[in-house]
């Protein structure tokens, strides 16, 4: 399958990329890892007239902690998360997420920014970023603005609140505090497939083991990445035990809006959200209390 025709321009810096977006507006698409976009072009589901290739913007690939946050350059490859000791030791929920993205060869090019900016409800990072209460940085002609992740996605798949002349340049994840932990569980038919369902959970506990923060995000069980607010809120001020975990999992399943398709009937997927949520919360608790 051969894509339709387009022009191709390499941007060597963020301002250059933003300038090209200014110039071409809606007609332009950013080419990062390309592992969502190029298949879309081949199937002719997308037909932009200009591709702006940002793969040579070297200073968009980084993982660093500063000001109590993890800063992830938008062009950071999934493979960089897979192999980073910082991620493995301090942000295991991100490692859970990256190793489930497509397959290892795809992850050599696929980017964290692309996984989020594509706003595919089947992608894995959106649920994790919702659970973590992350934010993203959009860079446009007027400079940068920080967008809370919940305000980045809309009610529609493949749609974000980025403006046509803005580029997603960074993802900011709150650094782990004492007694905090999270996990991402994904059920997939085979390596490389999208999730049948996925659940990300992140919790912070106080000195008495009571929940002071909880975030639960869902993958591929609705028209957009879903934050299960009722499930998260149900845990606040309570200990994480079998009863509260199962209550939250029931609420997460209720928040899912799955469709029946070749990955299974809707009720099965809802059931899997419940099961995966229990597992994710148990793992989050284990990690929050010093386990791996």
């Amino acid at each position, binding site marked *: *399958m*051969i*894509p*339709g*025709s*387009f*022009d*191709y321009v390499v941007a060597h810096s963020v301002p250059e990329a933003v300038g090209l977006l200014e110039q071409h507006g809606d007609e332009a698409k950013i*080419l990062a890892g*390309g*592992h969502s976009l*190029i*298949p879309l*072009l*081949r199937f002719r589901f997308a037909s932009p007239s200009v*591709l702006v*290739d940002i*793969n040579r913007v070297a200073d968009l690939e980084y993982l660093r902690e500063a000001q109590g946050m993890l800063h992830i350059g938008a062009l950071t*490859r999934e*493979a*960089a998360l*897979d*192999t*980073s000791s910082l991620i493995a030791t301090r942000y295991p929920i991100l490692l859970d997420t990256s190793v489930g993205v*497509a*397959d*290892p*060869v*795809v992850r*050599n*090019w696929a980017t964290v920014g692309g996984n989020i900016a594509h706003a595919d409800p089947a992608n894995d990072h959106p649920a994790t970023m919702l659970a973590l209460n992350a934010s993203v940085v959009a860079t446009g002609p007027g400079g940068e603005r920080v967008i809370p992740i919940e305000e980045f996605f809309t009610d529609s798949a493949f749609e974000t609140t980025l403006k046509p002349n803005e580029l997603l340049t960074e993802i900011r994840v709150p650094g782990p505090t004492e007694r905090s932990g999270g996990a991402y569980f994904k059920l997939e038919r085979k*390596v*490389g497939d999208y999730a049948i369902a996925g659940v990300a959970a992140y919790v912070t506990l106080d000195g008495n083991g009571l929940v002071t923060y909880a975030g639960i995000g869902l993958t591929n069980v609705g028209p957009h990445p879903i934050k299960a607010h009722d499930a998260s809120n149900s845990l606040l001020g309570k200990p994480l035990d079998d009863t509260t975990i199962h209550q939250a999992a029931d609420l997460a399943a209720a928040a899912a809006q799955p469709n029946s398709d070749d990955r299974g009937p809707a009720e099965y997927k809802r059931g899997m959200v419940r099961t995966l949520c229990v597992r994710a919360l148990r793992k989050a608790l284990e990690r929050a209390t010093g386990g791996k």
Partner: protein
Amino acid sequence: MSKQHIRVTINGTVYEDDVEPRTLLVHWIRDGLHLTGTHIGCDTTSCGACTVIVDGKATKSCTMLAVQADGREVMTVEGLEQGGKLHPMQEGFHQMHALQCGFCTPGMMLTSIAFLSRNPRPSEHEIRVAISGNLCRCTGYVNIVKAVQYAAEKMASSEQVPIGAGQGGE
């Protein structure tokens, strides 16, 4: 939609061409350069038959534009044998009977070579994860894993630097 000039080093040889931006790397390699050892399997980024090594990274060449490879170094299966001597990975596939139809073999070998360049002494599990983006419908993978183990041992004992080695991960 004018053509763009590219200059790509493939297996040590510099190739220059004018290509349409929409030309996929695999199509340019096969149809433009007639290096047909790189196969097209699924056309959906799933099977890995088209895997080549780009700047040290295993890459599905059906999911990269030829223009993206401008200035980069590419290795295809044709670059493995040197002076009539098989690459240890090729030797391993031969010795361990790691192929039947052979369609997945070039991609499987290139993925494995890029993998060994950053993990020279992998466990069986690590090998299985590394090749999980490359599908084989004949062998059931058992002999492919043995072939990669054979190559890993041979490359470690001869301290031969794998061709096209580079940082695959970060």
